[in-house]
C-alpha cells in the first residue's frame, strides 16, 4: 500500500477529475478518490468545493471509507454548515449500529463537527450513548459532553448532561471514570464557582480505586483532578497520600509528576512531627531523580518543576546535587535549567564540588551557558559565605583567560560580591582595572564604574579611569551614564581638590547636553546638593548601603504556592500562573503574562533593581525620588493602557471598609485595597498598599485609563519611603474630574495602572456614582417642574428599593449628606412623595421621585434624566446610601 502517490497529484483541473471519481460506481475508485481529497486537505489545498460529493460517499458499509469521509467532514463542516446537515441522518443511524465501534465512531465524530445546527441533533444520540451497554461507547460519549459544552454550554446544562456525566464517575469501567473526570474537570474550569466536581470522601474513594485500574492517561486525569481536592483533615490527607505514592513508580513521567503534585499539595496539611511526613519526604526524591533519565524534552519539564519543588521544600533533594551536574551532550535547555537548580542546592556541604563544576562549565562553548555559569559562581559566593574567598579566586582565574564575555560577566558578579562583603576583597580591584579597555557591554561597564567610584579613595588613578569613560559620554547607554555621573560625584566627595574640573564637566554633560530626564534630574539634584550643602551631599551620596540579600531570585511565596498546584502543567514550565477563566472573573490582568516567549521565561524571578545606580541613589532616605522622575514612565504607562481595554471588572462593593482591588498573587506581591470617598467637594481614592513580597518596593506611580467621567489623579501617588516586606501604607489620593473622557462599560468602570520598581500592574474597579454628586445639585422648584416635563417619558426609569424602613425625614436627610437634595415634598393618599435633584460632576442633572409608604419597607424610585444610562447607577447609589 503506497499512499504517498496521493500527495503528488498537482496538475490543473484536479478538482474536476476528483469530482468525477467520487461519483464513480466502483467502491475502490471512490475510496481512492476520497484518499486523494484527504491528502490535498492535509497539505492545505482547498477541496471544500467537493463537499456534496464527499458527503454522498458517507452512506456506506465500508468502515474505512466512512472514517475518511468523517475526517473530511470534521474539517469542512464549519465552512458549509447547511450541507453538513445532510450528514446528520447517517450519524443518527450509526449511533444505533449493533457494532459498538461504529456507535462510538459516530458519536465521537459528531462532537467534532462544530456546527451549531448539528448540535441539536446530537443530543438524543448522545444521551443514549452515555448509557450504552458497551464501556467503549460510554467512554467516548463522556468526552463528547465536553466537546458539546465547548460549542454550546447552555445546551449541555439544559439537557442535563452534566448530571449524567457525574453519574459516570461511579461507572464500573475505569476508563469511563477517567474520561468522565477529564470532561468534568474541563467543564468545571469554565465555571469556577459551580460545584461541578463536588469532590467528597466518597467520590475521592471511587477515584482512588479507578486510579489503580485505568490506563496511564486516565491516571493522569484522575491525579490532576485529585490535586484540586482539599482534604478535610490531616488524616484524610495522609490516607490519600498513601494511596497515591505507588504511582511514583510508574514508567510514565506525567503520572509521576502528577502524583508529586498531589503529594506536595497535601503534605502542607500534615504535621511535620509525623513519622509519615518524613517517610513521604524520603519517597519523593528518587522518582524526581529518575525523571532526569527520561528523554531531553521531559527532562526539561521535570527540571522546571524541580526548580519549584526545591524552592518550596529544599530538604527533598538536598543530597542529590550530583545528579544535576551538566553532561557534555545535554541539550542547551537542559544545561541551563540544571545550572539553576545547582545554585539553589548549593550549601556549605557541597560547595567545593559545585565550584569545581562551575569552573569547568565556564570553559564551554555556548556563550549563554558560560555566562550563566560565571554568574552562578558569584551567586554561590553570596549564598555560602564560607566559599566567598574561593569563588573570588575562581573568578580571578577566569578573568585571566581574557575571554571577553567571561571577563565582563565576572566583573558584574564581583560588584555584587563587594556589595555583600564590603571591605574584604578590594585587593582584586587592581586586576579588574587592567581589563577596563575590553569591556564593551553596558552592564559590565556600569559595574566597573561603580567599583571605581565606590572605592575611589583606594585607586590612585581613579580620576583618570573615570575620565577615560567621559570622552564618549553621549554614546553610552543610560545605565552607564547614570553610573558615571554618580561615580564621579562620589570621587569628588572623596578627593575634592583634584577632581573639581571633572565633576563640573560631568554635571554639565548630564544637565545641559542630555535629553534624558532621568539623567538630567539626577544631575540637577547632585548639583544643588553640592552647591548648597556639601556635608549633606556626602551623607546622601556616600551613605552606607544595605547589604544585598542572599537569594534575589526566589519566586514570591504566594506565586510559588500557586505554581506548586500546577506541577506538571505548562504553568510550571513557564513559571507563570495561567490566565484563568473568562474575563469577568478576573479582577486584574498581569500584563507580564503576555510575554511568554522563550527569552522572557525568567523575567518573573525578581531581578535586582535595574542598574546599580538606582539602588545606590535611592537608598538614603533623605533623597526622596522626585516626582518628575516618573515622567518617562508615566508616558510609557499610557501607551500600554490601550491594551487593557478588555480588563474585567470587580463586582461592586460599596461597603465602607476597603475591598481588595489587586490581590498580591496577581501583582508579584503587591496588594492593593481601597475605596472612594467624597468630602467637602473633593473626591479621593483611599488606598492601602501592602508589600507581601520579599523585596523592597519603591518608585510607585499610578495612572487611570480614560473613563466615563474623566476621573484622574490630581496629584502623584506619594509613597514617601520604600515599602519594605510586610509593611503597609495608607494613602489618600485626591482625584479630579478633568481627565480625558471615554465611555466605559459599565459606566462607572475605572481601569487603573500602578507601577513600582518591579513591574506595572493593572486592575479595574467600579466606583460608586455618588462620589460624583456635586454640592450645588439643588434645583429650584419651578425649574424642576419644567425640566421634569421636558424630559421625554422614555427616559424615565423605575426601581424598587427594598428593605428600607426609614421615614421621609430620615431618607431626606440621609440623602442630603450625599448631595441628593429634596426639592419638594407632598403627601398623596397616605404616601410620601419626595422630589429630588442631583447633579453630576460633568453637569448632568438627574431628577427623582421617591414614593414612600409608611409601614411598607419598600419604596419606589423614579428617575428622569437626559442621559438615561446613568439611571441604573444612580439607583445603585440610592441603595448604597440608604442602606448604610
Amino acid at each position, binding site marked *: 500500500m*503506497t499512499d*504517498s502517490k496521493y500527495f503528488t497529484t498537482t496538475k490543473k483541473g484536479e478538482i474536476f477529475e476528483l469530482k468525477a471519481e467520487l461519483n464513480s460506481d466502483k467502491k475502490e475508485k471512490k475510496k481512492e478518490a476520497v*484518499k486523494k481529497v484527504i491528502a490535498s*486537505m*492535509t*497539505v*492545505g*489545498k*482547498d477541496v471544500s468545493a467537493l463537499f456534496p460529493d464527499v458527503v454522498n460517499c458517507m452512506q456506506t*458499509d465500508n*468502515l474505512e471509507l466512512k*472514517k*475518511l469521509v468523517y475526517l473530511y467532514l470534521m*474539517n469542512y463542516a464549519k465552512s458549509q454548515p447547511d450541507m453538513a446537515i445532510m450528514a446528520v441522518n447517517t450519524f443518527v443511524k450509526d449511533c444505533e449500529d449493533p457494532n459498538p*465501534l461504529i456507535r462510538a*465512531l459516530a458519536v465521537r465524530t459528531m462532537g*467534532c463537527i462544530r456546527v451549531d445546527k448539528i448540535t441539536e441533533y446530537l443530543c438524543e444520540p448522545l444521551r443514549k450513548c452515555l448509557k450504552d451497554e458497551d464501556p*467503549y461507547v460510554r*467512554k*467516548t460519549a463522556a*468526552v463528547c459532553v465536553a*466537546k458539546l459544552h465547548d460549542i454550546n454550554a447552555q445546551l449541555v446544562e439544559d439537557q442535563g448532561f452534566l448530571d449524567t456525566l457525574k453519574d459516570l464517575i461511579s461507572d464500573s*469501567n475505569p*476508563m*469511563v471514570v477517567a*474520561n468522565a473526570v*477529564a470532561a468534568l474537570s*474541563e467543564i468545571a474550569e469554565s465555571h469556577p464557582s459551580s460545584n461541578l466536581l463536588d469532590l467528597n470522601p466518597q467520590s475521592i474513594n471511587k477515584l482512588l480505586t479507578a486510579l489503580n485500574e*485505568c*490506563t*496511564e*492517561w486516565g491516571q493522569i*486525569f484522575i491525579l490532576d483532578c485529585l490535586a484540586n481536592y482539599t482534604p478535610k483533615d490531616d488524616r484524610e490527607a495522609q490516607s490519600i497520600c498513601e494511596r497515591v505514592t505507588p504511582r511514583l*513508580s510508574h*514508567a*510514565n513521567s*506525567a503520572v509521576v509528576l*502528577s502524583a508529586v503534585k498531589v503529594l506536595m499539595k497535601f503534605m502542607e496539611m500534615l504535621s511535620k512531627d509525623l513519622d509519615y511526613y518524613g517517610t513521604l519526604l524520603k519517597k519523593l526524591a528518587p*522518582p524526581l*531523580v*529518575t525523571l532526569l533519565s527520561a528523554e531531553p*524534552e521531559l527532562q*526539561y*519539564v*521535570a527540571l522546571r518543576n524541580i526548580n519549584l519543588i526545591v524552592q518550596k521544600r529544599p530538604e527533598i533533594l538536598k543530597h542529590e546535587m550530583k545528579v544535576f551536574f551538566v*553532561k*557534555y551532550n545535554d541539550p542547551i*535547555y537542559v544545561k541551563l535549567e540544571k545550572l539553576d537548580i545547582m545554585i539553589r542546592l548549593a550549601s556549605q556541604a557541597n560547595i567545593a564540588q559545585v565550584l569545581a563544576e562551575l569552573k569547568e562549565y565556564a*570553559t564551554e562553548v555556548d556563550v549563554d551557558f558560560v555566562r550563566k555559569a560565571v554568574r552562578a559562581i558569584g551567586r554561590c559566593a553570596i549564598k555560602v559565605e564560607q566559599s566567598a574567598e574561593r569563588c573570588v579566586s575562581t573568578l580571578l582565574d577566569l578573568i585571566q*583567560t581574557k*575571554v571577553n564575555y567571561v571577563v565582563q560577566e565576572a566583573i558584574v558578579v564581583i560588584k555584587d560580591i563587594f556589595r555583600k562583603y564590603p571591605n574584604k576583597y578590594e585587593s582584586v580591584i587592581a586586576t579588574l582595572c587592567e581589563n577596563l579597555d575590553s569591556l564593551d557591554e553596558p552592564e559590565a561597564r556600569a559595574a566597573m564604574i561603580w567599583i571605581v567610584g565606590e572605592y575611589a579613595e583606594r585607586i590612585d588613578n581613579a580620576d583618570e579611569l573615570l575620565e577615560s569613560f567621559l570622552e564618549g559620554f553621549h554614546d553610552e547607554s543610560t545605565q552607564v551614564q547614570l553610573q558615571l555621573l554618580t561615580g564621579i560625584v562620589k570621587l569628588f566627595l572623596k578627593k575634592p581638590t583634584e577632581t573639581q574640573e571633572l565633576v563640573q564637566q560631568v554635571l554639565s554633560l548630564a544637565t545641559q547636553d542630555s535629553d534624558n530626564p532621568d539623567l538630567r534630574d539626577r544631575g540637577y539634584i547632585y548639583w544643588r546638593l553640592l552647591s548648597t550643602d556639601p556635608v549633606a551631599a556626602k551623607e546622601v551620596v556616600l551613605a552606607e548601603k544595605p547589604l544585598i540579600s542572599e537569594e534575589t531570585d526566589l519566586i514570591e511565596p504566594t506565586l510559588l504556592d500557586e505554581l506548586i498546584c*500546577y506541577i*506538571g*502543567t*505548562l504553568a*510550571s*514550565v513557564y513559571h507563570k500562573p495561567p490566565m484563568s477563566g473568562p474575563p469577568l472573573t478576573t479582577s486584574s490582568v498581569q500584563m507580564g503574562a*503576555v510575554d*511568554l516567549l*522563550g527569552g522572557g521565561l525568567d523575567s518573573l524571578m525578581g531581578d535586582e533593581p535595574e542598574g546599580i545606580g538606582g539602588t545606590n541613589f535611592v537608598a538614603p532616605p533623605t533623597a526622596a525620588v522626585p516626582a518628575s522622575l516618573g515622567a518617562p514612565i508615566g508616558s510609557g504607562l499610557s501607551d500600554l493602557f490601550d491594551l487593557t481595554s478588555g480588563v474585567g471588572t470587580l463586582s461592586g462593593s460599596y461597603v465602607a471598609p476597603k475591598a481588595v482591588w489587586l490581590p498580591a498573587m496577581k501583582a508579584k506581591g503587591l496588594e492593593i485595597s481601597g475605596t472612594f470617598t467624597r468630602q467637602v467637594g473633593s473626591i479621593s481614592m483611599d488606598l492601602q498598599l501592602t508589600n507581601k513580597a520579599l523585596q523592597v518596593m519603591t518608585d510607585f506611580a499610578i495612572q487611570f485609563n480614560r473613563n466615563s467621567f474623566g476621573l484622574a489623579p490630581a496629584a502623584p501617588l506619594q509613597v514617601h519611603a520604600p515599602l519594605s516586606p510586610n509593611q503597609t501604607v495608607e494613602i489618600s489620593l485626591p482625584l479630579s474630574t478633568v481627565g480625558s473622557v471615554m465611555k466605559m462599560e459599565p459606566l462607572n468602570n475605572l481601569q487603573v495602572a500602578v507601577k513600582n520598581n518591579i513591574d506595572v500592574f493593572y486592575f479595574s474597579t467600579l466606583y460608586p456614582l455618588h462620589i460624583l454628586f456635586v454640592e450645588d445639585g439643588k434645583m429650584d422648584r419651578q425649574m424642576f417642574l419644567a425640566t421634569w416635563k421636558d424630559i421625554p417619558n422614555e427616559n424615565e426609569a423605575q426601581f424598587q428599593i427594598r428593605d428600607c424602613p426609614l421615614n421621609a425625614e430620615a431618607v431626606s436627610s440621609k440623602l442630603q449628606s450625599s448631595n441628593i437634595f429634596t426639592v419638594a415634598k407632598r403627601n398623596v393618599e397616605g404616601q410620601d412623595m419626595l422630589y429630588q435633584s442631583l447633579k453630576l460632576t460633568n453637569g448632568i442633572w438627574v431628577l427623582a421621585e421617591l414614593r414612600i409608604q409608611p409601614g411598607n419597607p419598600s419604596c419606589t424610585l423614579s428617575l428622569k434624566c437626559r442621559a438615561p444610562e446613568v439611571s441604573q447607577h444612580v439607583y445603585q447609589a440610592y441603595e448604597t446610601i440608604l442602606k448604610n
Partner: protein
Amino acid sequence: MIGGLFIYNHKGEVLISRVYRDDIGSQAADSAVFSSSGPFLGERLGGSVRNAVDAFRVNVIHARQQVRSPVTNIARTSFFHVKRSNIWLAAVTKQNVNAAMVFEFLYKMCDVMAAYFGKISEENIKNNFVLIYELLDEILDFGYPQNSETGALKTFITQQGIKSQHQTKEEQSQITSQVTGQIGWRREGIKYRRNELFLDVLESVNLLMSPQGQVLSAHVSGRVVMKSYLSGMPECKFGMNDKIVIEKQGKGTADETSKSGKQSIAIDDCTFHQCVRLSKFDSERSISFIPPDGEFELMRYRTTKDIILPFRVIPLVREVGRTKLEVKVVIKSNFKPSLLAQKIEVRIPTPLNTSGVQVICMKGKAKYKASENAIVWKIKRMAGMKESQISAEIELLPTNDKKKWARPPISMNFEVPFAPSGLKVRYLKVFEPKLNYSDHDVIKWVRYIGRSGIYETRC
C-alpha cells in the same frame, strides 16, 4: 488539552494535521508569521489553523538559531515538539495542559507509528497517512489521550484496512472490553505450542571522572526487557536481588542475610510498565503482572552504589609549546579475566586548529578523524584485568584566537556481558490457572548486557 497535532517534514511542509480545538491559532499567526507566503499559505482551510501551522514553521523549523526550548510560545499559543530523524511532531495548545503528558504522548505516538510501519520517515508517513489519521482518531480524542497500547490497537486497526467489517458480535465486544478494560495491553485467547520467555537485563553505565581519577558522578540506568510467548492470561512474578527484599526475607536466618547480603544491590528507584501492580510493589515490594504479548519493557531502574566500572581511563595531556600537544591515554579493564568486553571505542577530542596527528597504540586501531575533531581508537575485544595504551602527538596551527581550547572530556563506548549494577534475576515464575501448563514447562532465557552510557573522563 491538546488543541491540535501536526507532523512536518524537514522543510516545514505539513504531512499530517489534525485539529481538535478551535482556540488554537486564532492569534498565533497575526504577530508571528512574517514570511509572506509559504507554499500552502492563503488557502481557505481553517485559515486560523493554517496560521498556527505556519507560526511553528517560521519560528521553530526555520529558526536561524538552535532551538532553545522544546516548548515554544508564540502569541499565547504553546507548541510542544519532538524530532525523530528529520520529522517534526508538534502538539499545539492554548490551555494550561499537563506538559509532561503532552511529551509522553508524543513519544508514545512515535512508538505506535514505529510499531505499525517501522522507521518514522517522510516516505513512511506519506505511505501510511490514512492509517495515521485512523490511529490518531483512536488514541487522541478532543485532545485527551486514550488507549495507546499497540497490542490492543492492532486488534482492530491494521495497515490492511479495518478488520471489524466481518467480526462477530463476540469479537467486537472483546475488542471494546480490551481497549477500555483493566488489562488493555493483552488480548485473551493467545495460544503457543511452546511457552517461552526471554529476559534481557540491559544496563547503561554512566560515569563522569575527574582527570585525577576521582568519580564525580556515576550511575547505572537499567532496563529489564521481556519477550514473552505465553498462552492464556499468565500471572507472572519477577524476583531480583533487591536489597530490601533480601533483607526482609533473611530476617529469620541471620546467616543467610550475611551471605546473600553481599550479593544484593541497593536500587535507588525503579519504574514499571503499566501492567505491574504498583500498589502491590509499594506494600510488599513484589513485582507481579500479566505481561503483554511479545516484547515490552518490564521495568527501569537506577542504582548509584557499588557500581562496577568496567573501564578506567587515565589521560595525560601535555602542551609542548604553542603548536604541539602530547596525549597519552591508558585504559584498564576492571572485571573478571574470563569475561570479554566488546566494541570498545575511545574518543579523544583534538583542538580545532589541529594540523596533523601521529598515533601509536598497542592494541586495536586508532585514527584521527578531522571532521569529528577527535582521535578514535577502536578495540574489538578485551578481556578483564588488562591494560592498553595509546599515545599521540598533535600538531597545531598557530592561531590568534585568544579563546582557550575547551578540552572536551574523553568518552568511551563498550559492551560487557554482565550487569555493572550487580543486578541478578532470581526468578520469574509463571502461573496460568486455567490452562494446563505449569511454571516448569516454560522455557526461560536470561541475558545480561552492560553498555556504556555517557562514560566520560575529563582531561
